[in-house]
C-alpha cells in the first residue's frame, strides 16, 4: 500500500503528514517521527485515537467552509489539502488582493446595507447588518477594496454562507 501524503493547516500552521494504513490503525509520519495510531470510530464524526498509550477523543464539526477538530475542551481549525492542489487554494480572507466574498455567518434578515456598489471601503468597515436571534451583527470588509457587487437589500432573508457582497 502506498502511504498517503497530505498537508493539513492546523490553527494556521501548515503541517505535512504521511499516513500508512495498517491493521486496526495506521502509522503516521509527522515531523520526522513515526507514530503508530490505534483507531476506533464510535460514530460518524468521532474518532477515538490511542497514540503511544494516550487516548484522544477527536470530534469533527463542519460549519460553513470551516472545519474544526475538538479534543476535549480544545478546538483546532483544520484544513486538509492534497499536495498537488495546495498552491493558490484555501487562501485566508484578507490575505491577498483578488475578489473577496462577504458571506452571511448565520441565517437571518438583512437589517441595513451600509455601502453602495462602487464604494471604496476600508479594512474592517461595516458592509451589511444582519439581524438574527434578537441581535444585530455588522459584517465588515476584511480588507480595503471596492464594492464590486451587492447581492442583497434591506429586508432580504439570507441563509448561512450566502454571499452578500463582493469586494475587489
Amino acid at each position, binding site marked *: *500500500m*502506498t*502511504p*498517503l501524503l*497530505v498537508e*493539513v493547516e*492546523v*490553527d494556521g500552521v501548515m*503541517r505535512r*503528514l504521511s*499516513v*500508512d*494504513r495498517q*491493521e486496526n490503525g*495506521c502509522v*503516521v509520519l*509527522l515531523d520526522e517521527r513515526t*507514530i503508530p*495510531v490505534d*483507531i476506533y*470510530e464510535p460514530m460518524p*464524526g*468521532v*474518532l477515538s*485515537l490511542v*497514540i503511544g498509550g*494516550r487516548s*484522544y477523543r*477527536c*470530534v*469533527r*464539526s*463542519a*460549519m460553513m467552509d470551516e*472545519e474544526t*477538530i*475538538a*479534543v*476535549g*475542551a*480544545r*478546538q*483546532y481549525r*483544520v*484544513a*486538509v*489539502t*492534497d499536495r*498537488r492542489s495546495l498552491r493558490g487554494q484555501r487562501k485566508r480572507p484578507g490575505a491577498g488582493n483578488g475578489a473577496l466574498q462577504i458571506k452571511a*455567518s*448565520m*441565517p*437571518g434578515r438583512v437589517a441595513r446595507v451600509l455601502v453602495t456598489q462602487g464604494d471604496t471601503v476600508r479594512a474592517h468597515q461595516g458592509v451589511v447588518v444582519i439581524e*438574527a*436571534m*434578537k*441581535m444585530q*451583527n455588522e459584517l465588515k470588509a476584511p480588507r480595503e477594496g471596492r464594492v464590486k457587487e451587492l447581492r442583497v437589500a434591506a429586508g432580504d432573508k439570507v441563509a*448561512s454562507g450566502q454571499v452578500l457582497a463582493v469586494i475587489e
Partner: protein
Amino acid sequence: MPSLRKILIANRGEIALRLLRACRELGISPVAVYSDADRGALHVQHADEAYRLGPAPSIDSYLRADRILEIARKCGADAIHPGYGFLSENAEFAEACTAAGITFIGPPASAMRELGSKTRARAAADRARMPRTPGSVRGLTSPEEALTLAKEIGYPVMLKAAAGGGGKGMRAIRSSEELPSALIAASDEAARAFGSGEVYLEKLIERPRHIEIQLLADQHGNVVYLGERECSVQRRHQKVIEEAPSPVVGAELRRRMGEAACRLAREAGYVNASTVEFLVDEAQNFYFLEVNTRLQVEHAVSELVTGVDLVHLQIAIAEGKPLPFTQEEIALRGHALEVRVYAEDPESGFLPSPGKITRLLRPGGPGIREDEGVYEGWDVPTEYDPMLSKLIAYAPDRATAIARLGCAIDEYVIGGIRTNLKLLRRILNDPDFQAARIDTSYLDRLLAKSAPENTEVTGDTAIADAATIAAVLFAAPAAASPTSQAQTPWQQDALQRGLHGGLRR
C-alpha cells in the same frame, strides 16, 4: 383551590421542558404551545398536548396573549405557567388569565406592577427599610432636577429606565457635563424599547457584585428566602455563569439580605416565586437593584443547594397550599454552578450561530444536571434567544463544583453550530474566577485579554498532533475504517477523492 390537573406552558426552549417535567412528576398534564419554527422542538415532542400559536416571530406566537388564553380555554387547562421572558412579567396577561378563570402561576398583577417598575420598586424598598443606592424614587422631570440630584449623591451616577432591562436606556455618567445630553438619549432609548421614557438616577456602585435572593411566598402570608445566588459573571448585563451560595456571603449578610427581601415581598403583597436583585460593594454593603417577578433562568443552583424544587413549589403555591417548610428549616448544603450554553461565537464578537445541530454528546455522571432545550438534529431557530441549554454542577464545595463543571464541558460536544463552551471553560480555568475575584465587569476584563493558545494550555503538542491526524482520517474515511466502503488497496487517487469528499461534506 383544588389541585391543578392541566397546565399550559406558555414558553419554549429549556424552560418549557423543565416546566413540563415538573408537571408530569406531579401528575399534572402539560400542554405545549409552539410557533412554526418550533413544531419539532423538544417541548412539543414531550407534551401531552401541543397547539400551534402562529408564525415564528415572538410577536406572532409566544407573545400572543389572546391566542394562548384561547388555547387554554379550549383545551381545558386550569392554569398557565409563563416561564421567564415572553409574557412572564406582563401584568395585563396575568389579569386576563384571572378574568378567564385560569390560574396564572406567578404573582398577582398588582404585586407585579408594584415591583415591575423600578422607580415604584425603589419606593417600596424604602417602605421595607431595604438599603438601596442613593438616588430618585420617581422618574426625572427635568435636566435641572437631574443635575441637582446628581450633585447631591455625587458622581459617578447611573441613568436607568424605570421600565428597563437588559441595559437599554442605561448610561453611566461621570461628570455634570455629560448629564443633560445623556438624559435625553437615555429617555429616547427607553421610550423606543419599553414604550415609556421614564428614567431615574442613582449612585453608581464601583465594581459591584451581582447577588440576588430567591424568595417564595404563599397565599397565606408566609414568605421565606432560599439563600442567595451570585451572578457577577455577565456580559452586556446578561448573566453567563451563576452560583449558589455566593463565595462572599456569610450567614449574617445572608440573613440581612434575605430578611430585607422578605420585607419587600410582604410590603408588595407578593405571592409565588421571585428574586430580589442586589449590588454588593467591596465593603459588603448591599443595595437594592430590582425585583424579578418570575422564575429566574438560574433557579436551578438554588434548588441544588437547598434541596427543594422551585417549580413544584410554584405550583403548590398557585394551588393555595401553604409552604411546606419554615425559614428555619431551610439549610444550604454544598455548592452549585450553572453555565448558560449559547449558540454564539465568542471569537467573532458573539455573533449568534443558529443552524442544525449535527452532533450532540451530552455529559453525565455525579452532580451533573442538564436542563436542555435541544437535541441532535434540531435546527436552532434564528428568532429567539440563543440559549441552548443550562449545564449545572453540584459538589460539596466550590472548587470541586468548578472542576466538575469544567469536566462536563470537556465532555460536551455540540457539532454543526458555534457555541460559547470554550469561553465557559476558559472562565472556569481562570485563577480570578477560581478565587472568586469577580464583579460585574469581570468578564469584560477577561475578554479584553487574549485567549490562551491551545499549546499554551498544555505545554505539549501531542493533542495538536492527535487533532492533525484525526483531521486527515476524517478527510480520508478509508484511513479510519478499513472495513468500510474502501476495502480496495489504499491508493493515492482514491484517497484524493476521499479527501475532497471529506472536506466538502
